[in-house]
């Protein structure tokens, strides 16, 4: 990401936090890809749940921006908002499931069959990864995703999740080990 873009987003965040709705519109559009990917990873690839998490993240971002002082980077601030939105979405999902009772052949987490598009694009590896991710909780998925796919460091992860760096390291270690074991059952080793 270009330095100019980062500065632009921080400026937009400040204006949006001050009540400038056009700035919020623009900021939401710029951040959407990152928010959407985070939501999709936390939702283990369930598009409907990912959509709920992403939109809830935007709602919470709008409410939280007036408190953004630039002490943390905007990126970690946004991921923190996403983490809270995702945790909230999973709490609601759990409540709905308790109310409705277990679904037939219910899995631990949403894991719909891959559509034809996915099958064509990613094939078996994507399906195996989705199933393996379903064995992790949403916090573990988000942690592994941000580390492995977005390249966040331990300090940034600690800031994003509001936990000490030592806790990040131990959770990351456990999450990666669970994912590795789940993928090995699927016949995959990870690099």
């Amino acid at each position, binding site marked *: 990401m270009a330095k100019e873009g980062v500065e632009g987003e921080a400026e937009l965040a400040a204006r949006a936090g001050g*009540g*400038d*709705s*056009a700035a*919020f*519109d623009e*900021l*939401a*559009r710029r951040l*959407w*890809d990152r*928010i*959407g*990917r*985070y*939501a*999709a*990873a936390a*939702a283990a*690839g*369930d*598009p409907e749940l*990912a*959509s709920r998490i*992403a*939109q809830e993240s*935007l*709602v*919470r*971002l*709008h*409410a939280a921006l007036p408190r953004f002082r630039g002490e943390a980077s905007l990126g970690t601030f946004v991921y923190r908002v996403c983490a809270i939105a995702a945790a909230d979405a999973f709490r609601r999902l759990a409540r709905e499931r308790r109310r409705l009772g277990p679904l037939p052949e219910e899995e631990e987490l949403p894991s719909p069959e891959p559509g034809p*598009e*996915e099958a064509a*694009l*990613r094939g078996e*590896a*994507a399906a*195996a*990864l*989705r199933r393996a*991710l379903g064995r992790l909780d949403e916090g573990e998925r988000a942690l*592994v*995703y941000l580390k*492995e*796919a*977005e*390249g966040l460091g331990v300090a940034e992860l600690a800031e994003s999740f509001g936990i000490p760096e030592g806790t990040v390291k131990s959770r990351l270690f456990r999450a990666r080990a669970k*994912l590795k074991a789940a*993928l*090995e*059952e*699927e*016949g*995959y*080793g*990870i*690099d």
Partner: protein
Amino acid sequence: MGSTEIRRMELGRELRALAELSAPGAPEPRLAAAESFRRRRSSRFLGLCLAAGAALCVGMPLAQRGFGPRPGLAGTLASGAASEVAAEFAAAVLGPRAPGPAGLDAEIETYLVALWDSD
């Protein structure tokens, strides 16, 4: 798995590809702003309505004491609160181009209705 063959997976690349594949479509920032506003203001609007109700309750003993009834006090206060919230809502969500409550877009009206209903 019938096969014992282990295939290699570049985790970061596959995670990103899966996330991109199942990421949601276009954002809806105005709806997000509207929902954020609704949550924030909802409790205050409720407070105003309760204040209106309380005012009516105060008015009744006054009426009983011969100071005269205050018909429609709660309604007037609630209506005033509604107008205030609607105007603030339009400014917060639509910004400088807010056309006023009468001309709000249908999608925003939906949230206004939800606001009134929830309170």
